[in-house]
């Protein structure tokens, strides 16, 4: 069993920017081994919620529960320490460095002995671990020594996701992971998201593309004007219902409240 409760719970999260109420008492859960799609129109509060969870914005009101216990997310580092990894849309990769260097950027392995004090890079160790990680995720790139700037958009996205896994996170948030990708590359990234679920991670995906969302998500959480506008089981919901919830045109579908992790399989 995948534990009892959600791995991450957000309760009554509120955040305003001046007069604009970006988030208004949002309750949001993620379970282990579950892909939750976070959808909503522009300005619905998706990014604000993601950034609040990632520790970039401090919240005005509400609380976070991680693995059942209350936590404060004081900044990006405290979110990372809890085990929440975020892959932003711009990926933040260094094009001039190779895949290994990017995967380990900021957390490089250092050799032991005399070279330790001089912080000499342990390239073989890092290359080895890169191979292992990318193999587990079935990521296909020409070589771990390829410069990231020479990779395709899909490969870059996969490298960015793989990097977020090096810190052994429990929750991974992906911001628009398939934006600007071709058909084949989108497929690769969606397959990677499914493999994250197989690793029992809680995965939060922000996307505008409903077709992609239905392809990977177990649950679809809809935000509208900073409030929860619906929480749907992706396997029992139609695209029309989601669009209805996003636009507020029709409120027919009842939010199903409790999430059912692992329903996909």
């Amino acid at each position: 069993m995948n534990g009892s409760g959600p791995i991450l719970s957000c309760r009554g999260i509120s955040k305003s920017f001046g007069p604009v109420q970006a988030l208004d008492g949002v309750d949001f859960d993620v379970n282990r081994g579950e892909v939750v799609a976070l959808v909503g129109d522009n300005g619905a509060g998706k990014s604000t919620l993601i950034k609040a969870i990632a520790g970039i914005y401090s919240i005005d009101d509400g609380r976070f529960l991680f693995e059942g216990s209350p936590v404060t997310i004081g900044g990006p580092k405290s979110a990372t320490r809890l085990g929440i990894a975020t892959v932003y849309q711009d990926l933040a990769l260094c094009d001039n460095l190779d895949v290994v260097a990017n995967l380990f950027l900021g957390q490089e392995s250092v050799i032991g002995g005399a070279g330790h004090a001089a912080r000499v890079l342990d390239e073989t160790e890092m290359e080895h671990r890169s191979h292992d990680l990318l193999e587990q995720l079935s990521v296909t790139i020409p070589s771990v020594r390829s410069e990231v700037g020479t990779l395709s958009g899909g490969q870059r996205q996969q490298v960015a996701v793989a990097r977020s896994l090096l810190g052994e996170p429990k929750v991974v948030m992906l911001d628009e992971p398939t934006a600007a990708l071709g058909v084949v590359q989108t497929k690769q990234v969606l397959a990677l998201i499914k493999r994250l679920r197989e690793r029992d991670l809680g995965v939060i995906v922000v996307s505008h593309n409903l077709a992609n969302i239905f392809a990977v998500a177990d649950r679809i959480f809809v935000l509208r004007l900073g409030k929860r506008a619906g929480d749907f089981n992706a396997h029992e919901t139609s695209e029309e219902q989601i669009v209805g919830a996003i636009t507020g045109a029709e409120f027919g579908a009842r939010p199903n409240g409790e999430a059912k992790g692992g329903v996909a399989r």
Partner: protein
Amino acid sequence: MKLRTPDVGAPEDAGAEQVSRADVVRRFVQGDLASLRVIFAIAVIWIVFQSQNDRFLSAVNLTNLFLQITAVGLISVGVVMALLIGEIDLSVGAVSGLSAAVMAVLNVKQGWNPWLAVAAGVATGAAIGFLQGALFTRFRIPSFVVTLAGSLSWLGALLLVLGHTGTVNLANSDITNLANTFYSPTVGWIFAAVAIALFAAITLAGYRDRIGAGVTTEPLGLLLFRVGIVAAVTIVAIAILNSDRGLPLALLILFAFVIGFQLVTTRTVFGRHLFAVGGNAEAARRAGIRVDSIRVIAFTLCSGMAAVGGIMAASRLLAVNQSSGGSNLLLEAIAGPVIAGTSLFGGRGSVWSALLGAVVIGSIANGMDLLALESSVKYMVTGGVLLAAVIIDAVARSQRQAEGRV
């Protein structure tokens, strides 16, 4: 015996091995292309000047050439630190003059121990770099503005330190020997043997480690070829130097700094972070790298090396005067690495480019002096070479960007 983790066996890697070998060849072509281009350019320059004046490739002139490029090469090593993070330091000329002046005044007028004076000179340069780096990161002023303002100020400080005489002659033999010591042929050959043995040992040990760990490596043939080239160049160079005055200490100092900085930039966490900041500062920041610290350190190293270069220049000139660090020194120190493939846009390049670029610029200057060309011609030729190099850099960059969007 090497670290071989059990979960990745050789068979699974067989497919990846194929792909990566092709990639390795591609990397060799792309990565070493800039260096090959420069070496080719040097060959052309040397052949042209030799055909015009057969003293150009004589042992005495080549030795002079290396003595001439020592100071600018050392300054360029520092400039590479600034270029790698995508910044520029326009104060290196003035800083080299001021640091040398501080050393000279402390030693000659204040009677300091020569080595203490040298250390104080280098510390002056490093402190200036720290200050400029701190101003740049604290107030987010473009680095060329900070260092341009700095350049004027340090020029003023140079005049102040030198006092009304305007010139300080160096008399201490420890300091003047830095640029005027030549080793006997035997010592030269010993250095050559040690250098070749070390390079071969490090190259082959790295190969053995990587094979042992089961990760990709460059083909053994390529590595042996590289060792062979280095050995051949070293032997020829020592033979030439020995047939004149011998191996100069100045050249050893230059190589020691080049190799040291090359190792720091390519083998350490700090070096990796330098490239990361130059490639994508925002990505580096999000990866937890203290970007501003890296920048301040890079500027400190840059000015510190400007001081080292200035002290070597003073040692060769046997004096520090009001024009120390002036004239073309600044432009040549920046143009050299750029000509030899270090990008002005940051994140790409190597410390070797400081050496290779200095040889290119030094050869052109030396050759034109031998031909007794007018200053007007010399300036225009040097400017043209720099412009060509920057154009090549810009073209290579746009090609890379086009590739990246495939």
